[in-house]
């Protein structure tokens, strides 16, 4: 197969709802994100990749269909992917043995604070936003 043929096959699979094409696109954005993270942007490479992909999708340069199957596969099973790092807790369990009570207390308190804060703030701001929109429409 010539290089050109390969390019055609590749772009063909990019354009359609192809699992491997979608995976290639996600990994390409990840690679670009990692590169930018190594060079200048002080953010995790995967988050930069996510922002770039969102931009490409919103601007219409990339169709949702071209990455949908691969992204659904990964996101529907996301929990399974962090099983191995979770097992790593067996190595670090001893480091938190002394402070597990304060950690548990911090998680409980902070989670409650965030839920109440975000819920009430969003309810209030969302109401203001919708009221302004209604006025604008009248």
């Amino acid at each position: 197969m010539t290089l050109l043929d390969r390019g055609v096959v590749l772009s063909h699979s990019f354009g359609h709802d192809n699992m491997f094409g979608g995976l290639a696109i996600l990994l390409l954005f990840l690679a670009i994100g990692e590169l930018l993270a190594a060079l200048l942007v002080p953010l995790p490479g995967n988050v930069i990749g996510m922002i770039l992909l969102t931009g490409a999708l919103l601007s219409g340069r990339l169709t949702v269909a071209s990455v949908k199957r691969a992204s659904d596969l990964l996101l529907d099973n996301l929990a399974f992917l962090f099983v191995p790092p979770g097992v790593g807790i067996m190595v670090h369990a001893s480091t938190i043995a002394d402070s597990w009570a304060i950690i548990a207390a911090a998680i409980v308190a902070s989670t409650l604070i965030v839920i109440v804060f975000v819920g009430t703030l969003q309810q209030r701001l969302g109401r203001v936003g919708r009221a302004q929109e209604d006025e604008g429409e009248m």
Partner: protein
Amino acid sequence: MNGFLTSPVLWVTLSLLFYVGAMRIYRVVGTPLLHPVLLTIAALIAVLTVLEIDYETYNEGGRIISFFLGPSVVALGVPLAERIRELRRQAPALVATVVAGSAVGVVSAVLPLLLVGAGESIIISLAPKSVTTPIAMSVAERGGGEPSLTAAFVVMTGIFGAVVGPIVLRIVGVRDRVAFGFALGAASHGIGTARALENGRTEGAAGSLAICLNGIATSILTPPILALLFWLWPV
């Protein structure tokens, strides 16, 4: 026999089998307290301990699985783009809320540990606890924390928020459907969003938007917030 027990094939296979089994149990019992990830992790640790196999050996197979966390974070761009189109009208309010909520989450998680003088690595690992696991692990790793501790903290945060969050939101009078889902997603990432989705599509959409926006906000805000807090309360 030793070669078999230390081969990546065995541990990738067992990870998958235990996860499938844990999903079955979870579907029958139906409480987030028995989250399939927790069951799978506990079962694997038990087997590794009994067979006296260390984590490094397990992780030769494990890292094949966790490699896909990277592209999964990128894949969050798909629901993010879809939700932005869907919830565009409320976008300014949602962004303002999530930025403030992210800062509140990091400070309120870290402050108790700073005040009692816990170890620096534990504090850094706990800071991004409200964010979806792969982003939280990256944030912790870049800051000098321990990603596997972060994974455990994030799952605990998710479960606690998903169980208690809806009750608390009702008590404080949050009836707005977007605010309800957004709060659960911002505090308890995917596990909270799964709970929000049980109430309806709007709640679920708000939750998945919160996961993405909070991931971005927290990865930007955590390093400066931690620097400030460590300056105020040196460890």
